[in-house]
């Protein structure tokens, strides 16, 4: 059967055992190559990668911490603002209350003053009325005396001594007025 694949190891120098035994020259080159690669990896490449990764982790950590710090600061500011707002509200309420009290006081003062003024005006008016009344009374008294004398003269038919009559009439009026005031109170 020639149409078959023939796997044949030549019977020359290398034997089957040589396939699984390391050749010295290859061992030497393999050791050199691995030493170079291991040195490069362990001393240059991996430390660099490690550095980059550590720097990235650090920057993420820093960003996280700074974000947390800023968040705490923002919260503190918010609390401060809330506190200030509360204080401002309390202050405003206090001012409003004070204003209200002041207004109330002013109202009371104005009211009291108005009442006082009104009383004063009334008193003054009464005084004026009283004075007017007095004056009218006196005028009336004079007129009545004159009229009485004139009337009496006409009745008697002779002139009555004006002076003495006047005194008499006046005395009578005083009496009458005295009686009037007494009588008024009695009636």
């Amino acid at each position, binding site marked *: 059967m020639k*149409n078959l694949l023939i796997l044949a190891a030549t019977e020359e120098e290398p034997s089957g055992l040589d396939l699984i035994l390391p050749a010295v020259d290859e061992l030497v080159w393999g050791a050199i*190559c691995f030493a170079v690669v291991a040195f490069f990896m362990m001393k240059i490449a991996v430390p660099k990668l490690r550095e980059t990764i550590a*720097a990235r982790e650090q920057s993420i950590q820093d960003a996280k911490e700074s974000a947390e710090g800023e968040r705490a600061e923002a919260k503190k500011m918010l609390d401060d603002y809330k506190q200030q707002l509360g204080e401002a509200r309390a202050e405003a309420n206090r001012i409003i209350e004070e204003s209200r009290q002041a207004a109330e006081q002013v109202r009371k003062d104005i009211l009291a003053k108005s009442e006082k003024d009104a009383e004063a005006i009334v008193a003054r008016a009464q005084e004026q009325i009283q004075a007017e009344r007095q004056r009218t009374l006196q005028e009336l008294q004079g007129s009545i005396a004159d009229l009485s004398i004139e009337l009496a003269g006409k009745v008697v038919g002779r002139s009555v001594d004006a002076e003495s009559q006047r005194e008499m009439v006046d005395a009578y009026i005083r009496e009458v007025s005295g009686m009037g005031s007494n009588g008024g109170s009695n009636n």
Partner: protein
Amino acid sequence: MNLALELDVNHLFFWDPILFKDTPFALNRVSLLMIVGSLACITFFWLASRKKSMVPKGMQTIGETAYLFIRDRIAIDVIGPEGVRYAAYLTALFFFIFFMNLMEIVPGINFPVTSRMAIPVFLAILTYLLFNFIGFAKQGFHYLIGTLFPPGVPKGIYLLLTPIEFFSVFIIRPLTLSVRLLANMMAGHVLLTIFFLFTHEFLVTDFKITTLPLGIVTAIVATGLIVFELLVISIQAYIFTMLTAFYIAEAIHGHGDESHDDTDHAPVHEVEGLEATTTAA
């Protein structure tokens, strides 16, 4: 039909020196690709770590994500908070293996450097030295006692368990670690080579109308295998790094430390189990 395809496996894995012949520094295609892979890895991380912008873009995003994945998902998850100390080494380990594996599917190269034993065994020995050093540094002589005589086991069982623990931790570990990586990459390389050779044979070298459907099928399978191999490349780098982290964790916290529940140790077997599935596939 007289199709004959002869594949010399040695042509896939053995390369004559180009420079410094007959010296320990003999430079062949494998060594040259190691240098290329290392330069690619360094360039990638140089570009990724060059800019230190706060908002990462492009390469920086990929580099940072890759480092953070190794640091958080492997170093810290497996070792604990002190795992951060080992994150740089584990990152170097993961990406060195990844770039070396990646050669398998880079057009024009198509050769995984890790399908040669040099790098797997060197890295496995390094892991072995590292976890044992950490174990003795952290726990002193108790590390050896704790590893060979895990607490909470009936005394009679030690007759069986202690030799098994000794072999599995101090002898087998570097071997499984290196062979797992080597075998996976070797298998992948052979698989890809076979399918591409078939495709080339059916569609170019020995093209006939009857070989056309076969050629198309093998081409499709080969392309699918590239995607699958990309998965294997990543998983193998992950498993190697993960197991190194588990071994370090065990060395720091002790074998059956009460302070660490079984979840710390159970995944070791889960990760080792992944190897079986990828190899079987």
